[in-house]
């Protein structure tokens, strides 16, 4: 007799407990999701104190015909070829080391893993998977050569002076 008496309140109890457990687990899940969004937002800096991607390479006549000039600070090459001036990233496409222009060999070489490139950026050999990046370059209103290091070009583009 007591069995049937106790059964009803017990099941009501357990369903209420279940509801609270679900509420608890649910709010913990919401809190975790919120914490991961907050965590991600906190860890990703909104303001970067890094150099501007646009660099001023000076007057174009600083670069005589048939020369390759390396700007170590900016990590770029300014090449004056037969078709005109163009800018190339000096950052190796393999793992991001700074390559160097070897005037005695007439090639670009990477000190880290030995990749070699022609002066138009095309690959001679080495682990680098892609040619060196060409960068957007243009002449400003003041007559300076500007290079945007954040804008790789998909095809060759020359600055005519």
């Amino acid at each position: 007799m007591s069995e049937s008496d106790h059964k009803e309140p017990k099941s009501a109890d357990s369903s209420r407990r279940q509801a609270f457990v679900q509420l608890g687990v649910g709010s913990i899940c919401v809190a975790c999701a919120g914490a991961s969004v907050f965590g991600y937002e906190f860890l990703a800096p909104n303001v970067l104190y890094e150099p501007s991607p646009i660099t001023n390479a000076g007057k174009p006549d600083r670069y005589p015909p048939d020369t390759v000039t390396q700007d170590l600070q900016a990590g770029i090459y300014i090449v004056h070829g037969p078709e005109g001036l163009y800018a190339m990233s000096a950052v190796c496409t393999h793992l991001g080391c700074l390559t160097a222009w070897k005037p005695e060999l007439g090639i670009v070489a990477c000190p880290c893993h030995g990749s070699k490139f022609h002066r138009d950026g095309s690959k001679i050999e080495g682990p680098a998977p892609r040619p060196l990046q060409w960068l957007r370059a243009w002449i400003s209103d003041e007559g300076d050569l500007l290079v945007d290091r954040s804008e790789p070009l998909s095809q060759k583009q020359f600055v005519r002076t």
Partner: protein
Amino acid sequence: MANSLESQLAGLRDTRVWRSIFRSGSGATNLRRALAVQQNVFLHLASVKVRKRSLAFRVTWFLGTLTLGAFLILVLTGIPLMLYYHPSVPQAYADMNDLRFVVSAGVFLRNLHRWSAHAMVLLVFAHMFKVFYRGAYRSPREFNWVVGVVLLLLTLFLSYTGYLLPWDQLAFWAITVGSNLISAVPVLGARIRFLLLGGNTVNANALLRFYVLHCVVLPLAAVIFLAIHFWRIRKDGGIYSGESEHHE
């Protein structure tokens, strides 16, 4: 003489202060010895009883213990090094040189830290090879092997983050190369790299993040996983002592 020292120690173990700290009293019974291990927060990670056979040098070559030793040396030398090191650009490089040339015993602590770091990586690998070739990773110890793999990754990541801290050319390019490797992770690669470096290039943010990872986050994680690792040895029936133990 020895007898009186022993009786004095026994007397000390029966004092109220000793008993309030260690609970287990004096006496050479097995129960007392077992309690001494079981009731100590550090010792209780280890087994109360150990097979004499499994303590022989040829069983483990003591490689796990040696790895723990290297880790303890790294903690003990790393903390004093932190007192002279500022994780900022370009101060970090100057501080590293100060530790080498100006600070008394600085060069000793720095080199001890560096060599122990190399030794720890070597010992972790040696320990894992020894465990693997003895077959000690098999059931019921397969989870402790997994914990060991986590500890291997923590060791390598500690090594990697510590490599940036001297802030010289070698460090800078190694981390540049290493962080570009991370970009190869599918879909999330570039984002992970950005979060790890706190920017697009290896710079002040990256140095600070690596410092915090190297000095706080990773050592803390390593201590937690070490505790699990040692406790599991006890729970899995002690150190694997040979083929005879393996059933199936």
